[in-house]
């Protein structure tokens, strides 16, 4: 029962936060222009007066502010995020098209982050104050301090231009056609079609942006894990394990690591924030058609509805991942579970 009430409380908080974000985006949208029609439609308002009038009616944009907010929320719940002049279609549709690409990058970025970050963290903790420790710390410091575009450029130079290993951009190589959009994720869709060559092609294109993100972010995992290991090795229960006569390897890998990993889980939610930030640059440099690139394009075009809607969507992703991390933490740490 402890777990269920815990989840419900967290869920309530999540909903509250999302509502707060919606309020902020609403305020921002009304700050663009006192004319709410312009806020909703951006420049389309002047370009398509009939469309503007239709929107005004639909969203009661001539009513007082609180009514507008009400219909704004109703619209959100129905999946209406406004209209994008840039893309020539509703924002929600544009996001639905681009989000899978970003999620693909995010997925591989997390995988790379863990694959790089965890072993390095373990090594740095085990060989504390030896050469390996300092080397690893220098490495992750470089990664964490580099702006995402530096890492992307670096990878581009090394992997694409120097060693010709991976392509320079796009989601698929020119000439390769996209699979039928079943789920919207080209990786999954190509597999569903049984089209292995398309799948592999898509895979090679997703690696670079994901790796660029992972290099910027793995340092957090390594740092936290290293500090956690050092702290755990100083505890009384590790001293008890030694007194029992266990060998150092068992003590390190069985007793220490299991406890040291716990803070890494809470870190996962922070990672998402950094990944989302980095994806803007990675997608731009690698011309990967995800939400990040969409946002940057919207920025240049001053497509306000898109910008604000994407803000809301990103917030939603972060809230969802925080929730998932909290639940995972409760599962992993027995003490939280039974409180």
């Amino acid at each position, binding site marked *: 029962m402890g777990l269920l009430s815990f989840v419900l409380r967290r869920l309530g908080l999540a909903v509250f936060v999302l509502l707060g974000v919606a309020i902020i985006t609403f305020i921002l949208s009304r700050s663009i222009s006192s004319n709410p029609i312009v806020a909703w439609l951006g420049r389309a308002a002047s370009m398509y007066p009939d469309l503007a009038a239709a929107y005004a009616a639909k969203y009661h944009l001539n009513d007082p502010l609180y009514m507008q907010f009400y219909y704004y929320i109703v619209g959100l719940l129905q999946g209406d995020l406004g209209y994008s002049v840039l893309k020539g279609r509703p924002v929600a549709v544009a996001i639905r098209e681009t989000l899978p690409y970003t999620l693909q990058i995010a997925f591989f970025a997390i995988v790379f982050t863990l694959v790089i970050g965890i072993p390095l963290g373990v090594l740095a903790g085990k060989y504390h104050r030896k050469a390996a420790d300092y080397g690893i710390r220098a490495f992750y410091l470089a990664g964490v301090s580099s702006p995402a575009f530096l890492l992307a450029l670096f990878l581009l130079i090394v992997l694409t231009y120097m060693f010709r290993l991976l392509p320079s951009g796009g989601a698929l190589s020119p000439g390769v056609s996209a699979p039928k959009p079943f789920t919207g994720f080209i990786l999954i869709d190509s597999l569903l079609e049984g089209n292995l060559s398309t799948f592999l092609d898509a895979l090679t294109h997703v690696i670079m942006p994901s790796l660029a993100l992972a290099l910027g972010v793995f340092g957090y995992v390594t740092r936290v894990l290293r500090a956690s290991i050092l702290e755990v090795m100083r505890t009384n229960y590790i001293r008890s394990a030694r007194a029992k*006569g266990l060998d150092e390897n068992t003590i390190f890998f069985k007793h220490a690591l299991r406890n040291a990993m716990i803070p890494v889980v809470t870190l996962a939610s922070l990672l998402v924030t950094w990944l989302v930030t980095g994806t803007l640059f990675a997608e731009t440099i690698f011309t990967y058609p995800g939400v990040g690139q969409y946002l940057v394009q919207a920025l240049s075009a001053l497509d306000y509805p898109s910008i604000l809607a994407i803000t809301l969507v990103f917030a939603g992703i972060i809230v969802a991942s925080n929730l998932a991390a909290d639940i995972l933490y409760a599962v992993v740490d027995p003490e939280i579970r039974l409180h």
Partner: protein
Amino acid sequence: MEGKSVLNVDGLSIAYELKTGTVRAVDNVSMSIEPNELVAVVGESGCGKTTLGLSIIGLLPSPPAKYVSGEVNFNGKNLLSLAPDEMRLYRGTEIAMIFQEPMTSLNPVFKIGNQIREAIKLRDSRGKGGATSGRDTLGSSSRNGANDKKKQIIDVLNLVRIPDPERVADRYPFELSGGMRQRVMIGMALAQKPSLLIADEPTTALDVTTQAQVLKLMRGLMEEVDTSILLITHDLAVASQVADKIAVMYAGQIVEEAEVLDLFSHPLHPYTQGLLACIPSGSKEGMKLKPIQGSTPDLRNIPAACKFAPRCPCVMKRCVATKPELTVKEGSHRVACYLYQ
């Protein structure tokens, strides 16, 4: 007593090298523990008793600590001459140790039964599971299978008188009280059938009632399981409840050692006398508590004299000139004081 001593510490000196100076934590300590004997080492914080305990089991962190001289003989073998890997084989199954803070001494993410099972497995893997007289209570490795392991775990919990052992074995440490956790520690330590159990302030973190229970348990188990106990404590009253022999430590040295009754009826060293006078007791109602004047010496500046001299009410010229050695006064009563030399 006949036979070989379980533990024989001979002239042990250990120093800590700090940035601020070298500290003589243990100064020429010699003592012994016989089979089935409970010896208590009593002294204030910083007198070196914990260092002594850790050095016996080989858990003294060796960069700051340095073994200056002496031997630690366990069943005849000098432990200080062993390589770390060899010493590890003695830990747990020959010499076990439990510590002061039961709240943090158990791994929080593993269940109690799991942790006990680990101790048992280690014991079996070192071939100590075989039947030895008096230790069959804890099972032998000739029996295999998960059920038998489970039974052995329950046996351990029963040994330390933990009620409802099946449920406790399935619990996590944070679900138990301090007293119960300490019993689990004791049980886990004894499950490995050591010849010597070192207990460093095992009851200090517990309330008085639990304290008495745990002490009584340890004393009782000593006979049941055929082991010896080295009890380290700052509390003379605690020591008096369960010890056969008490060694009083001050500033790294043993200043007096005697059997319990003898120590309490004829305390010789002025420090011991002072300690006894400090114990609040009902029979001395109305009398003032007499603390010992002064404070423990800075162990970095070692005078060539008796370390207690600055605080001693009976100090003589001789005491400030040279250090008195621990010598036999009568029978098994030893004291390091010029009043008796």
